[in-house]
């Protein structure tokens, strides 16, 4: 193996070469003819909006998906992975953004899951894995994590580092990291960067997917920008800047710029007074006016989803008060909240949004059954008409409204869930990661839908982990950190730095 020192000059045969890789899901072409080479010890930054095709491309490289066209070379030899296991065998490790640690096991056991060292008696050699775990964690800059601690007790960021250490333990030749720093504290980020640099000088190639542009520019030897399934730009270290990258990613200089909206002096729609669930939400106090869009920003595990759940009655309230349009309310279930004009578009379209075996129309009407029925008896014509007006307003693309919802693209599925919430004629709309995993076009449509609804006097709360989304959409932003609402920021003072500063404010780092 060739070992390069420092920032790598690319050797003659790259470790990985992709030629003309293409992939479609049904009618959607998600990747078109991608050419890419990764040298030994090279760090590549892969940037792009959600839905640009980054994950699909990396899933092909790591053996989770098969390409429709194109070839892949490893050390100059053609390969075709039929499974993730084959790719791992070839030295390719993928650390996903979704955490997959087993909470009930210790950190050390997680690190050696599936290949636990044994003692002579065949039992797990705990002293060996604890020792090895300690050095692995130190390697990725996470020396503060105790190897014997249950993995479930760690913060999301710490779990992320455990995942990275787990991949590093295999000594991969290519390490793919999807948003590795999204929930790390600044101190942990520094340790992580040291790990990337040392892995690079040991000859490990790294592909690094991130939304944090500064980090990409600092760490990467090369930055590639993916848009609509194509590589639209490629830069060496120090050859680009932030504005240039944003333009490349979105195709516009101000794709998701804030659209100024006049929020006059309007009635207070929602007023929270020290709302707590005794666990993940601690004394949230804020208010939302009719026609206002208020953001809730926070890191993974900050309590955004939980706060929305307490508001809509999906999670029991331990203390605090809540007023809806001036009336004190206490919802015992989302059904109760819906009757009083509170609808939610939940996080996780597949797990908590769609009814997968239902048609498009029946998904949309699920929250409005009583208003579409005469007593108990459904009025199918009224249901069809109600949906068709929303289909137009939300420009939902489909053949007929009786096709299964799973045959629509992710963005269109999400629009159907929006239609479901709006059809119930709510006065307060709660949105949880409303554009997660939808393509850029649908995202712009969804923002427009939210603005229009707010213009008609709907009060909207948007919980999101995406700063650009928060900045594009919100009139005011509350920042959550470890379940506490630490700051409510007016539109004028919004910036990425301020939001992140407050988001980390309640997190104490272990010494």
């Amino acid at each position: 193996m060739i070992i390069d020192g420092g920032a790598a000059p690319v050797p003659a045969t790259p470790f990985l070469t992709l030629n003309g890789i293409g992939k479609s899901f049904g009618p959607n072409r998600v990747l078109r003819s991608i050419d890419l080479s990764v040298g030994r010890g090279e760090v590549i930054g892969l940037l792009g909006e959600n839905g640009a095709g980054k994950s699909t491309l990396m899933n092909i490289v790591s053996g989770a998906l098969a390409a429709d066209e194109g070839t892949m070379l490893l050390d100059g030899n053609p390969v075709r992975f039929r499974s993730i296991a084959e790719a791992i065998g070839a030295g390719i490790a993928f650390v996903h953004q979704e955490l997959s640690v087993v909470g009930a096991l210790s950190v050390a056991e997680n690190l050696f899951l599936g290949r636990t060292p044994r003692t002579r008696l065949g039992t797990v050699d705990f002293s060996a894995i604890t020792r090895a775990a300690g050095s692995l964690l130190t390697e990725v800059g996470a020396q503060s994590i105790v190897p014997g601690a249950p993995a479930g007790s760690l913060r999301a960021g710490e779990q992320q580092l455990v995942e990275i250490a787990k991949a590093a333990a295999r000594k991969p030749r290519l390490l793919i990291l999807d948003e590795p720093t999204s929930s790390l504290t600044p101190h942990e980020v520094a340790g992580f960067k040291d790990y990337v640099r040392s892995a690079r000088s040991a000859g490990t190639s790294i592909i690094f997917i991130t939304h944090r542009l500064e980090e990409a520019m600092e760490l990467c030897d090369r930055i590639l920008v993916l848009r609509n399934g194509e590589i639209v730009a490629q830069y060496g270290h120090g050859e680009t800047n932030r504005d240039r990258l944003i333009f490349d990613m979105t195709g516009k200089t101000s794709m998701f710029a804030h659209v100024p909206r006049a929020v006059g002096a309007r009635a207070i729609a929602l007023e929270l007074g020290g709302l707590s669930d005794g666990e993940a939400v601690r004394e949230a106090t804020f208010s939302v006016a009719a026609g206002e869009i208020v953001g809730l920003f926070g890191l993974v595990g900050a309590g955004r989803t939980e706060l929305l759940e307490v508001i809509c009655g999906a999670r029991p309230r331990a203390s605090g008060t809540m007023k809806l349009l001036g009336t004190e309310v206490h919802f015992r279930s989302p059904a109760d909240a819906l009757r009083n004009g509170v609808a939610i578009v939940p996080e996780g379209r597949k797990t908590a949004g769609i009814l997968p075996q239902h048609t498009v129309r029946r998904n949309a009407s699920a929250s409005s059954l009583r208003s579409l029925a005469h007593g108990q008896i459904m009025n199918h014509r009224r249901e069809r008409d109600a949906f068709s007006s929303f289909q137009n307003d939300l420009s939902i693309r489909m053949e007929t409204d009786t096709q299964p919802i799973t045959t629509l693209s992710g963005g269109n599925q999400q629009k159907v869930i929006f239609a479901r919430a709006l059809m119930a004629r709510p006065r307060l709309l709660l949105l949880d990661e409303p554009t997660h995993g939808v393509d850029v076009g649908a995202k712009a449509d969804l923002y427009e839908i939210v603005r229009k609804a707010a213009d008609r006097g709907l009060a909207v709360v948007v919980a999101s982990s995406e700063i650009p989304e928060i900045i594009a959409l919100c009139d005011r932003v509350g920042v959550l950190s470890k379940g506490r609402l630490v700051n409510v920021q007016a539109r004028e003072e919004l910036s990425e730095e301020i939001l992140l500063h407050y988001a980390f404010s309640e997190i104490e780092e272990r010494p």
Partner: protein
Amino acid sequence: MSASSTSRQVLRQLFHYRETSVLLMFFAVAAYLTFASEFFLEPRNLLNVGRQASVVAIVALGQALVIIARGIDLSVGSVIGLSSVAAAITLRDTGSEVIGLATGLGVGLICGLANGLMVTKFRINPFIATLGMLSIARGVALLLTGGIPVNYAGWAEYLGAGRLYDVPVSFLMMVVLAALVHFLASRTVTGREIYAVGDNPKAARLAGIDVDRTRLFVFAFCGLLSGLGGIILAGNLASADPNLGLGYELDVIAAVILGGTALSGGRGSIFGVFIGAMLMALLNNAFVLLGISAYWQVVTKGLIIIMAVGIDGLQRRDNPDE
């Protein structure tokens, strides 16, 4: 080329309706019996099949709603036994047909409500909750009677053994109930809520559907129909045996699954369940007509359940989206 591919598409579309396969099986068995036994097509035999199907079919209607809502009710057989005994004893002690009938239905309803409350309020897995009820209801039936059957004549006899223009009353009741439950499942708000809850309970809850109330309803309804089944069964024999309905849960669940209802919830049709129950009765009839040992019947029932669920699994594997 294109002609064969369109006909293949039509076939696939047809098999997409899961009732198709059970309907085909039904006709295949019927066709075979027509040739294999001279008695099969006799009206007396056919009506008898209808009567035998009725109790399983009526209880299967309730069970279908439970399974569509992602639950299961293992207690139906015991509830049949307990309701019949309760109805017979109250009739004997009060002499009132109305009170007797109401007690039988009421006991079924209460057992169903108890199942529903265990599942919704105490978050007990439906399998375990109704397994417990299976034992409790049977035990209470035995305690009430000391294990000795109670005479049960009167209205119940008419329901269980009576005929209207030669057609068994229980069969007519089954047809009427099937039509009503079909309407409930496909045209009412409650029906839509049942499918939504079974398809994705978390999404249904956040969409503002009262998941607990829906689950409580299906269990209570299933209990009520089991109570009715118990009265019909006892009436047919003019005697309420505490062991009545023993093992019925197997036939009922088999009918529901054969009819194309997914055990994983959210999918199934009442029409399919109706055909599934008729098919089960037809198979029972086949064993009698062909003179095959009743023990084989027990083995076959098990095989049919496994086969029906196995076909479901294979179809799912073809379509990973589901």
